[in-house]
């Protein structure tokens, strides 16, 4: 968990938006480039991030002591669309993907959460706002239900009667994004799976970024309209638009 206090005035982010965060240690910078992180919450003038240690920059961030000065640009990107009245929101998170959807939990307390982790150690529930219903799954069964989170999601939706349209907002690893596209994309011809209920699904996708502001053209994802930029046109995309989800970077 990284908590930052902006040093100048900044607009507050929407759910699904992100910041480019970098270390600002003068002229010696290694790594050079900033990295994208979703903002999971803001309150009392502070920005909250939940960050998984993956490599160079996340390693450095994990060693930051209170008072360290970081550089950040944001909020960036489009965020999740607003949920309309009469729609039911289902939030799906895989692993650290929870960080990108966390602000939705706050904004839509009546939503349903599906949160899949590898094992109990990867779970960060204590830092999350609570929602009406939450289903936690783990690959090893060490916490919540055992098994793949999307299997449970599928069953849930299949068993959901009623005429309320469902919005699925999701973020997770590459494989999960791919599977979500297969499950919910209309083009895939399997909208039958949603058994009568109208489901519209959006995923927040990850891609390596250099600039975060649509100038390096580094963060492309293949969509039905050709390449689109995750930092500007996303990170949230309708599953109908995505052709190939961003690779495991």
């Amino acid at each position, binding site marked *: 968990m990284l908590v930052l206090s902006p040093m100048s005035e900044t607009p507050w982010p929407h759910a699904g938006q992100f910041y480019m965060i970098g270390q600002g240690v003068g002229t010696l910078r290694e790594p050079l480039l900033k990295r994208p992180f979703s903002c999971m919450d803001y309150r009392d003038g502070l920005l909250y991030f939940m960050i998984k240690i993956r490599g160079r920059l996340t390693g450095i961030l994990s060693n930051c002591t209170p008072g360290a000065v970081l550089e950040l*640009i944001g909020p960036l990107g489009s965020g999740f669309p607003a949920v309309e009245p009469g729609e039911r929101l289902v939030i799906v998170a895989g692993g650290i993907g929870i960080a990108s959807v966390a602000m939705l939990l706050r904004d839509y307390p009546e939503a349903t959460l599906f949160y899949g982790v590898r094992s109990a150690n990867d779970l960060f529930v204590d830092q999350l706002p609570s929602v009406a219903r939450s289903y936690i799954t783990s690959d090893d069964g060490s916490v919540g239900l055992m098994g793949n989170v999307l299997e449970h999601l599928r069953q849930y939706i299949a068993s959901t009667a009623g005429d309320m349209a469902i919005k699925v907002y999701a973020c997770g690893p590459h494989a999960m994004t791919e599977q979500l596209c297969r499950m919910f994309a209309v083009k895939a011809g399997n909208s039958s799976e949603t058994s009568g209920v109208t489901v519209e699904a959006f995923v927040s996708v990850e891609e390596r970024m250099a600039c975060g502001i649509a100038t*390096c053209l580094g963060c492309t994802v293949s969509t039905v309209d050709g390449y689109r930029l995750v930092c500007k046109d996303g990170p949230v995309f309708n599953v109908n638009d995505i052709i190939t989800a961003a690779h495991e970077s």
Partner: protein
Amino acid sequence: MNLEISIAGLRLKNPVMTASGTFGYGLEYADFLDLNSLGGIVVKGLSIKPSMGNPPPRIWETSCGMLNSIGLQNIGIAAFVQDKLPLLRQYDTTIIANFFGNTIDEFVQGAGMLTEAGGVDALELNVSCPNKEAGWSAFGTDPVVLAEVVGQVRKATTLPLIVKLSPNVTDIVEMARVAVDAGADALSLINTLSGMAIDIESKRPRLANIVGGLSGPAIKPVAIRMLWQVHRALPSTPLIGMGGIMTADDAIEFILAGARAVAIGTANFVNPQATLQVIGGIEQYLIRHQIEDINDIVGGVLC
């Protein structure tokens, strides 16, 4: 104190420009800095038709540098001229269009389109992208092909012509000579070094395109060396130096080596205001060293 310099007949209010492909079409950075402060804006490489570029992943950070394989994705000259150029022209800065073609004909046609459009101050001919197909690299690495493309483009435009050289050559001075002899008014150097990285866990290249262009501080010593060699051989040719400039000190190193102007590339990603900080730092340096005119230190290295 004078920061104004002249390159190929263009007067720039200061020697700091943006490097092509690292500043979009310029307008993207208007939220971050006053574009009027810049010596010049060099836009993303343009082609006669829009181009999709290479598949993702397209970037990977390396030690003090980054690899990119964008592959010259761009909106095409027509869209640039119609949608971007009028907006860009509202700023008081020099606009340089970086462009490329897949054949000599396309290069010539592109130069023609950009010249006729009006509003572009100069052309930067990109023969040095390491992310195109193998055959393409001949434009930047084979002296005979280079002479041909520069010569043809020279005939197709009345604008000042800057040729951007590739560092992936045995003899940069030879390439510089060829470009100047064929009609280049100025030279930009360097473009990215061809490089590659592999993810040892997945065993896949870090870039879908396998190889990409290396930029950033890692390449600065190579860029300084090439710039100095070319300046020594062709002292009267205006040179635009780039490759790893992060600070004003880096920019001055290029100027001392012989650059009349410099371009900031990767640093824009690290800090969107890098250009302004470089301009400010150059001023400080001149004041501290009691130098009246930036032109007095161009090529001023004591060897």
